[in-house]
């Protein structure tokens, strides 16, 4: 279903209204079953047109649910109560905005999508329906009527506990995070790739993003590795555990256990970092579980990741190993680039009379830019910058000597290109087309340039300077 796709693709397309609801501290494990029965039937508005009213109703109802059990919150969730309450809740979630006959998963998705589509600004999003969607695909019948569906979830306690854990995720907002024996490191996420590896890319960003809503908490919360299992041997559904609360300790350990030990290896630690999000990191097996060391390790991994990326950027750093040397190279490179800018600006400043050249002429020359940049990389539209070895290496020879060579090659290139006169009036931003169009001509042009450059014999390579 399209809505389903939209929902899963975005992952975070859940309307923001979910957040206050669950941010109010829904703890599925603690919901009082009796209060849940008292949910007003006005919940069920078949049409989602009055989305705002629905939202308010929902919020108020849920807040009533939430607030009551919060006070009488036991330390340990009751599985029995969990399942009932969860079923009802999920049923209600699904039944809200049921308008047409849609398949169950998309129904749930549409419940979230259509009712709460008004864009709201706060970042964290609820992926509850995502998670539940995963769980109850194929299990949820279409509630044709507008009554509370019987919520025929599998009576699997593991599922219930998982759902409870996920509910508890969003319930952690107002809770303190000091837990007895379990802590999490809250680290900004880095790679979504890591999440997908662990099998649940959809859940991860939004789940962890809800943690972002709990940013008020200090960063010192960490979760130590818990080798022993408490309960819930479900499959690994959630790759990133989210925030925890004191009361949801068990539930969250629940979530932890769900990551099957088989799938979760020593490299369970995540260093993913979508901006402004926090994820929890587990201590690796056999490593220090000290909070400081955990944080430090994550930080170090992030930095090393960035260093690898920088290594691609800075030319000639592939052989270099070690951070110190790498950093020196980076610093030198940045300094050389800045010096180049200064030098070129000096040159441009002295070119006085030419400054009156019309913009059109200059813009027409700009068409050549992608062409010029092509030979230096396989894919000019790659994410990383094209390797710039020639100019950099020539830096060692000195800027002055570099200048005339560059000009020579550039001018020869330009003249040859002008001779070819394949001036395609492509759109300024249509470089994709332009480059592919020029690519065939590029080879011939470059060869000519190289031929003219031979007497210079710089590096014996394609010195198509830019």
């Amino acid at each position, binding site marked *: 279903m399209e809505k389903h796709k939209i929902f899963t693709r975005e992952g975070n397309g859940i309307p923001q209204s979910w957040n206050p609801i669950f941010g109010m501290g829904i703890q599925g494990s603690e919901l009082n079953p009796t209060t849940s029965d008292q949910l007003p039937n006005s919940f069920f508005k078949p049409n989602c047109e009055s989305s705002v009213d629905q939202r308010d109703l929902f919020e108020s109802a849920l807040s009533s649910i939430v607030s009551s059990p919060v006070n009488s919150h036991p330390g340990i969730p009751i599985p029995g109560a969990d399942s009932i309450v969860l079923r009802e809740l999920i049923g209600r979630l699904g039944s809200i905005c049921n308008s047409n006959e849609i398949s169950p998963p998309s129904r749930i998705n549409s419940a979230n999508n259509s009712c709460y589509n008004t864009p709201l600004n706060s970042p964290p999003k609820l992926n509850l329906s995502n998670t539940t969607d995963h769980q109850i695909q194929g299990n949820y019948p279409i509630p044709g009527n507008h009554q509370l569906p019987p919520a025929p979830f599998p009576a699997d306690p593991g599922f219930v506990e998982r759902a409870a854990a996920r509910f508890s995720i969003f319930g952690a907002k107002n809770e303190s995070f000091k837990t007895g024996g379990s802590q999490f490191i809250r680290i900004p996420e*880095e*790679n979504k790739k890591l999440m997908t590896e662990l099998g649940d890319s959809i859940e991860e960003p939004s789940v962890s993003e809800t943690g972002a809503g709990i940013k008020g908490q200090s960063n010192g919360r960490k979760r130590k590795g818990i080798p022993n299992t408490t309960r819930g041997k479900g499959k690994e559904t959630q790759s990133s555990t989210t925030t925890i609360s004191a009361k949801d300790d068990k539930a969250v350990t629940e979530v932890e256990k769900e990551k099957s030990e088989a799938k979760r290896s020593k490299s369970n630690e995540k260093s993913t970092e*979508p*901006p402004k999000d926090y994820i929890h990191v587990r201590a690796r097996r056999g490593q220090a579980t000290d909070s*400081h060391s955990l944080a430090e390790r994550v*930080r170090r991994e992030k*930095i*090393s*990741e*960035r*260093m690898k*990326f920088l290594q691609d950027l*800075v030319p000639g750093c592939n052989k270099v190993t070690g*951070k*110190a040397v790498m*950093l*020196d190279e*980076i*610093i030198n*490179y*940045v300094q050389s*680039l*800045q010096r*180049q*800018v*200064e030098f*070129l*600006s*000096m040159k*441009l*400043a*002295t*070119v006085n009379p*030419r*400054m*009156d*050249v019309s*913009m059109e002429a*200059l813009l027409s020359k700009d068409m*050549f*830019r992608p062409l*010029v*940049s092509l030979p230096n990389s396989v894919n*000019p*539209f*790659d*994410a*990383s*910058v*094209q390797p*710039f070895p020639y100019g950099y290496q020539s830096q060692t020879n000195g800027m002055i000597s570099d*200048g005339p060579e*560059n*000009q020579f090659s*550039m*001018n020869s290139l*330009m003249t040859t290109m002008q001779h070819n006169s394949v001036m395609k009036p492509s759109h*300024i931003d249509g*470089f994709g087309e332009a480059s592919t169009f020029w690519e065939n001509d590029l080879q011939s042009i470059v060869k000519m340039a190289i031929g003219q450059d031979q007497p210079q014999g710089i590096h014996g390579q394609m010195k198509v*300077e830019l």
Partner: protein
Amino acid sequence: MSPSQQPTSLNNPAYLKNQFAHRFIRALNNLHHTKTPPHHNYKMYNRSTRVKIAANTAMASVVGSRRAWSRAVLWKIRKLRSRKRVNCHHQEKVSLKRRNPKPKTEDFNNPFGDSSQESKLRELVPGGETLDAVCLMGETANYIKCLVAQVEVMKTLVDLYNPT
């Protein structure tokens, strides 16, 4: 900061160069059309300095507010301009609020082998003083990428103007 998160248009270095070229050329034309150089600041009077500032500003404006370094560059330029108008001859060091706290115990947490390298990097990358180590690396990567594009464009321009 990771490449996967950048907008696709900025991932394209050709796009970067093109945008930068446009703005830079416009700025250059403006520069050279103003016959009377400003006398507010001796440093600013130098034409090459002005060209350099124009180039950096153009590059930073292409990147916009997405990057800390571009924000820092634009902010400094704005401060410079406002001070010029006020006719102030003193150039105070721009002090930016710390965005992310530096690690308290440098030795313990310093992933860099040498802290002087880190400080050097902070000096080089505009706006790097307020960044923590992780963000600093990301900013450096982006800064290098944009610098490369800038240098390429400027070289092309120089060759355009001096076809010798």
